[in-house]
């Protein structure tokens, strides 16, 4: 199974109309879509427009009810989920211990900011380095068993990290209270993270978002480059059949460990950004529910695609932060506070809706696992393909 549509350089029929021939000479849409600059460019554009669409655009944001900080948070978790997907979606290894890298990086970043330097870039580097190092150690132990045991072991060692932070290391992590002494300096020594960007603050908001968004674009570029390199091809080969990959002469164990370290580093980037975002590290960032959340995000959005997990992170956080606040589920466009008020009296579908959000998300997750293994992104791709076929295209 290959993810990209097969390229057909030698199309058999060469007898077409003049229009068709010229169309073939132009770079095809597929090829443009695959090109690195296109992916990075579109991502940059999307990241730049996202908070505006989400929080400040005229009608859309009224419907979405989003806010700037949620946009930032979605990007941070998006990086986390993307890194997780490099492991699950491309190498086929399911880790339940990524909280160790997210939380470890968050604490490392916090401690680094308090003890060494408060420069945001250095904080991110420190957190990421710590996460990559711990991923190396945990991966080395956990990868001794494959498949299901790997999931169990990563879960176990993730919990070990939690208990380490809870009591033996409480002198530095702050135990149950979390780490409160985060110091944040100016970006490049010039830009204050909390200040709006002059001139375009209506579009992207504060410098904090510029930092997070910039890192997110960078992460997408790196992940894209990895996945389209021969190295990334090996990951996919391992996912499809690791025995066969072994026979071909690849050192599967080493590639798996590397995939684990890379994905741990992505989790580390996200964790450090989270420290910068909230200026506080809660102990719960180590708890295994954090690992569970990133699993849900990645699978919900769709594993095995670059953007699926980011979509999943967006959906999860949106439901957690916005939908869970909805106490009464009403039919759209009914009730006094809607944008298009058709009926003044709201039509109530469900009372106390917010309390059920976790259950509903759980049910949707189960449904996705059973019915759409490629997640919501895969579903959208299939829909797009079907539409294109309807429209007569390829």
């Amino acid at each position, binding site marked *: 199974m290959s993810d990209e549509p097969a390229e057909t350089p030698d199309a058999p029929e060469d007898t077409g109309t003049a229009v068709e021939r010229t169309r073939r000479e132009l770079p095809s849409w597929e090829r443009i879509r695959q090109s690195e600059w296109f992916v990075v460019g579109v991502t940059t554009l999307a990241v730049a427009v996202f908070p505006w669409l989400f929080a400040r655009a005229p009608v859309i944001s009224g419907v979405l009810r989003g806010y700037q900080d949620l946009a930032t948070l979605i990007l941070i978790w998006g990086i986390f989920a993307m890194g997780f997907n490099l492991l699950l979606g491309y190498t086929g290894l399911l880790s339940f211990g990524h909280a160790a890298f997210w939380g470890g990086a968050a604490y490392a970043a916090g401690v680094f900011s308090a003890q060494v330097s408060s420069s945001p870039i250095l904080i991110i580097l420190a957190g990421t380095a710590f996460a990559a190092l711990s991923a190396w150690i945990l991966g080395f132990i956990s990868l001794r068993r494959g498949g299901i045991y790997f999931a169990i072991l990563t879960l*176990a060692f993730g919990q070990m990290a939690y208990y380490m932070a809870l009591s033996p290391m409480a002198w530095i992590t702050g135990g149950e209270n979390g780490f409160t002494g985060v110091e944040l300096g100016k970006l490049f020594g010039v830009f204050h993270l909390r200040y709006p960007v002059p001139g375009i603050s209506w579009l992207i908001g504060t410098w904090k978002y510029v930092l997070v968004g910039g890192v997110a674009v960078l992460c997408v570029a790196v992940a894209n480059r990895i996945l389209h390199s021969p190295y990334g091809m090996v990951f996919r080969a391992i996912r499809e059949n690791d025995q066969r990959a072994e026979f071909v002469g690849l050192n599967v164990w080493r590639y798996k460990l590397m995939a684990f370290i890379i994905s741990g580093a992505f989790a580390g980037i996200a964790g450090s950004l989270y420290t910068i975002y909230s200026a506080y590290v809660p102990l719960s960032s180590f708890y295994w529910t954090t690992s569970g959340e990133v699993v849900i995000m990645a699978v919900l959005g769709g594993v095995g695609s670059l953007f699926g997990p980011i979509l999943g992170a967006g959906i999860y956080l949106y439901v957690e932060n916005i939908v869970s606040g909805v106490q009464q589920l009403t039919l759209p466009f009914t009730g006094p506070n809607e944008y298009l008020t058709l009926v003044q009296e709201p039509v109530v579908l469900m009372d106390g809706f917010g309390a059920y959000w976790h259950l509903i998300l*759980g*049910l949707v*997750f189960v449904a996705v*696992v059973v019915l759409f293994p490629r997640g919501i992104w895969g579903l959208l791709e299939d829909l797009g393909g079907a539409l294109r076929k309807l429209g007569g295209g390829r």
Partner: protein
Amino acid sequence: MSLLAETVTVLLNGLQQGAIYVLVAIGLSIILGTLKFVNFAHGALYLIGTYAGLLITLEITLTDGKLADWGYTTLGLGWGFLPALLIVPVLVFVVGLAMERFVARPFYDRPDTDQILLTFGLAIVVQEVFKILFGGQSYNFARPGWASGQVGLPIVGTFPEWRLYIIGITAAVVVLVYGLIEYTDFGLVVRAGTRDAEMVELLGIKLSRPYLMVFGVGAALAGVAGVVGGPLYAVNPNIGTEVLVPSFLVVVIGGVGSISGAVLGGILIGETLAIMVAIAPQWSQVGIYVLAAVVLLARPQGLLGAEEVTP
């Protein structure tokens, strides 16, 4: 207290701690070993067992959650502990049968990761349903009146009677399951199926029914653990997942599919916890994970696990 008495007390406490993990882990282990199915929802079965036991045993007053909103403020039956110990396993056994038929069976041919994701999702759903029905708060599961006192033991002096009962009940259940697997025709088929399912099918034995039974028995064991372990911890919707992680460690340490391995692993984990609590309480939880790491580095297949034929 003398050093000897203290040591024996700690060891007994460890045995009792381990007993709960053994009960949960045996179910996990035989399901994993026989059906090759990873059940992350096994903690949910424990959860069901605990709440069912709570409702059967005590006349409990619900103050929170949907059930209270709907007017069921007293739901407990007040039948006492022994009926719970008999009814709950049957109940959870049936839940296990349903789970095998409708959840596990369609997923036997799907990849491991899909099984884990499915059962993980299911565990969340069960946990949330309980949270919605009973509220998020903790209930106190009182130990049965006939076992709430202290008992005099030779070296130790006095020891909580209930803890001895836990060890006793666990030992009885383990012997029962061991006998079932080792000395009956059913157990013979199950063990053969664990070794080579294809060959057993070729011999003309349909494995679907033994598989169903294995899942049911494993679930029932989790139910027993829920009732027996209920009085040890406060009962809340998160208890299932809290029991699941150490139980998985027990399975990994002991070796998959081996009942004696699960017992050995459970005792090791329980004793490690108890001893660490006695000498370095801060490190107690970390200790069991270090133990698991050491065992894995030395013997990846678990202490009593067989060397895997196919990786």
